[in-house]
């Protein structure tokens, strides 16, 4: 008699913990063959709220870490993902990818994390400036994280889309609340497990599964979310999100690109979710005394 397999329970990831949704609801997406992918949390508005609270709490310490340290932590994610490659390949295949496609997606995801790990202590030097003002002041502009960023992951990608949107945002010191792909949620939760076993502090990345239609309005109207990144492809949804964003003048960025392309990465995915802060200070000019005797 064959051994009975244990079916994994997928939980959501909030503040470095794996709670079930507070609503107690779940849904069971199926793959092309009609096989149930798993029992996935159908997160509620309250879960979104809790995730934003956790993300806000983490902003201060995450953004104030040294850039070098953030780089190390991001690199550690890549290391941990490399170690659990097989699981992601399996999940991607289960969700409908070919083995080859799944393997290359996981490899690309790892490489992309390494790419953004390297940016952590470099983007600042490219986007900041020393401004030669005409008055006697030292004036410089630096990039600062926007704070809490809501991310709506691409619907048609389980891993690479999520990684491509989340990494540049946290690379720049923001914390995120991610709404995972509704249809393809498995890698998102497993990625959370990778994060949990790496050095990413709790609350920096929060991942929710469930109905995007249900959660996106809560996330996009939330007054304590500073910016939104929309990775979907529905112009009407984007419009709704943009309208909701008005409440507290959220910045909204929409990217539609094939994240499987090797060049679907770059500095602007980091710098878009940065504020430019300009600082002035007087420059004193002392001296000039001469003697006449």
């Amino acid at each position, binding site marked *: 008699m064959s051994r009975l397999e244990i079916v994994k329970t997928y939980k959501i990831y909030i503040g470095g913990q794996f709670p079930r949704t507070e609503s107690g609801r779940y849904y069971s997406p199926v793959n092309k063959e009609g096989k149930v992918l798993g029992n996935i949390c159908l997160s509620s508005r309250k879960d979104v709220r809790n995730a934003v609270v956790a993300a806000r709490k983490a902003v201060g310490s995450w953004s104030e870490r040294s850039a070098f340290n953030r780089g190390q932590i991001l690199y550690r994610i890549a290391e941990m993902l490399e170690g659990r490659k097989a699981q992601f390949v399996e999940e991607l295949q289960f969700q409908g990818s070919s083995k080859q496609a799944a393997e290359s997606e996981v490899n690309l995801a790892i490489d992309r994390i390494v790419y953004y790990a390297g940016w952590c202590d470099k983007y600042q030097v490219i986007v900041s400036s020393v401004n030669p003002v005409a008055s*006697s*002041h030292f004036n410089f502009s630096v990039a600062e994280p926007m704070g809490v960023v809501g991310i709506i992951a691409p619907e048609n990608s389980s891993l690479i889309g999520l990684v491509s949107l989340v990494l540049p945002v946290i690379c720049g010191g923001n914390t995120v609340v991610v709404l995972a792909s509704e249809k393809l949620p498995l890698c998102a939760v497993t990625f959370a497990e990778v994060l949990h076993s790496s050095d990413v502090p709790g609350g920096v990345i929060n991942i929710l599964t469930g109905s995007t239609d249900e959660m996106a309005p809560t996330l996009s109207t939330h007054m304590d979310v500073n910016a939104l990144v929309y990775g979907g492809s529905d112009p009407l949804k984007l419009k709704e999100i943009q309208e909701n964003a008005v409440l507290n003048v959220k910045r909204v960025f929409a990217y539609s690109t094939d994240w499987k392309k090797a060049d679907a990465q770059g500095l602007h995915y980091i710098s878009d979710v940065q504020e430019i802060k300009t600082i002035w200070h*007087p*420059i*004193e*000019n*002392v*001296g*000039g*005394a*001469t*003697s*006449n*005797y």
Partner: protein
Amino acid sequence: MQMKKDIQQSIDQLLFNSPTIDKVGVEERVARFQTRSIKGDSKLQALKMALNMIDLTTLEGKDSPGKVQQMCYKAMHLHDELPNLPTVAAVCVYPSMVKIAKSALLNSKVNVASVSTAFPSGQAPLAVKLADTTFAVNEGADEIDMVISRGKFLAGEYSFVFDEIAAIKDACGNARLKVILETGELLTLDNVRKASDLAILAGADFIKTSTGKIQPAATMQVTYTMLMAIKDYYEATGKMIGMKPAGGISTSKLALHYLVMVKEVLGNAWLSNEWFRFGASSLANDVLMQLMKAETGVYQSPDYFSID
């Protein structure tokens, strides 16, 4: 004497409380005074006021009794072509010239000020400085312009500087004491402020920027810093201290900027030669030319104004 000792012990503490100065901020403030536009009667009044605040000065090794006498005549007769002109406030000379100036100015309201304390460097022992001062006072000086020991000040020996000023003040008797900080050697406005507070606390009747022998001499930035020290002292004690910028103020326009500054920092109460002086030798003629222009409507030539 015990009280003075207590004060001495707390001098460091007092100077620790001197506010710090941001030089760029001071420059901006001073630039605002310079944008004030003084026209018409307001200008005429100010020009006459400026004349009346001048300490007409000659402080040179080659000064002769004749030169001092001529300057004293000028002090009383600035430009006889113009009616109703005030005299200058004082003439400022070396101690050896005090007696000559005093007799030349007999029966006038013009005071005689004497520099002292081994002017301009101040590099002499206290005994010499006291003798220098006592000599000038005995010769009839109404005002004493002393220099502080900048070297000691810069070395942080504030008590030494304080004691010296207090001792000279004692030696002045009824003469009013102006304390020259020589701000061109103090380098920073923070030092200017500290030195101002020190001089005021030690008994200065006036604080004065410069000897005129060091560049930069008076600047508006330095004067503003000293005026703020006077203001703070007045707010704290109700006692007025006089101010004398000296050196480098040679045009009417600049003099008007200074008057604007005095008015806006300290108020109209300081706008008399009792509380404000210009230490200058060439300012008077420039002011006279302006007044003559106003009187005649014609731009003037320096050739028509005596240079004594």
